[in-house]
């Protein structure tokens, strides 16, 4: 009799990747990479408190010209991070908005955007 074992993997990827863009319409100073990370942590702290602010979030790439970035977060923290970014309204007393462009458990999937396909 052959013994076999069954392994069930649910959501095996441990990180989720988000491509986001910060919209700051007024032509003021743009945040650099460190200030951007500070902004993300502040958003998490405002909504989810100290536990949220301690969530391991990494900024993988950041472009200051377009204010777009790729963030990486532990899969269990995706809902917290996404909701914190959605509900952020102000950056240094200026109105701003986060637009989440793509999200995926695989980094490679963020390279192509099917919404920007020109048919």
């Amino acid at each position, binding site marked *: 009799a052959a013994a076999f074992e069954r392994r069930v993997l649910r959501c095996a990827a441990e990180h989720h990747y988000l491509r986001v863009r910060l*919209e700051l*319409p007024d032509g003021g100073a743009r945040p650099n990479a460190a200030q951007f990370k500070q902004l993300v942590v502040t958003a998490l702290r*405002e*909504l989810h408190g100290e536990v949220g602010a301690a969530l391991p979030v990494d900024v993988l790439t950041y472009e200051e010209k377009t204010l777009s970035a790729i963030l990486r977060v532990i899969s269990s923290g995706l*809902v917290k991070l*996404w*909701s914190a*970014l*959605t*509900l*952020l*309204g102000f950056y240094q007393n200026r*109105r*701003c*908005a986060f*637009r*989440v462009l793509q*999200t995926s458990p695989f980094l490679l999937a963020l390279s192509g955007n099917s*919404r920007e396909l020109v048919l």
Partner: protein
Amino acid sequence: QNTLTVCFSVGYSAVALNHVIDFKEKKQEIIKPVSPSELFPSLPIVQGTSKRIKVLTRLTLVVSDPSHCNLLRSTSANIRLYDIIAVFPKTEKLFHIACTTLDVDLVCINVTEKLPFYFRRPPVNMAIDRGIYFELLYTPAIKDSTMRRYTISNAISLMQVCKGKNIVISSAAERALELRGPYDVANLGLLFGLSESEAKAAVSTNCRATMLHGETRKSACGVVYTVKKPRKVEEEETAVPACKKAKTQA
């Protein structure tokens, strides 16, 4: 107008423009809604399909007194022009009346302050049977942190009573920056305690059902259907109540 342009680029397929009427001030008259064709000569196409984006008009009545509800039954012609009608009850009695007898499509739930009344199960279940949806706003949560707490607490207490059915999440955005994409809003539904499928439905299928409910309400108002019975010639039957009931159940 700028807000609408952002809406289209973010990926919504139908937008409703809201007009709020508050009855505390005197001499409120319902004005005609702004026709969407005035704002946009040609509406852009929804991403991914070949249909155009729909722009609807919506009316919200802030009621704090039962006499304000009489306006809904009046034959003011301007009410008919709005596609969706929503009511914002301020007291428990009015909430009960709105869920059970008023002819509306949406019941707005206050998110900016602590609810003065608790939700009870009988009127909520009756509203779900009648096809009325409960609406939550998310824009106050972006502006102020105290409002965030009230939004989430009121939403959670609503979820406990209605178990996540018949919820619509909408924004009361006045500027383009206060708008968020549809998937972001569905994620907010997860925060409120909905399950994943319910949260996505709150942005997509429930909204479409509200639009259809508004259309059936528009078409069933004022229909007179006379049927002459073949045997008794002098009797005429008007089947108005049956028609209206059948259409709101559909």
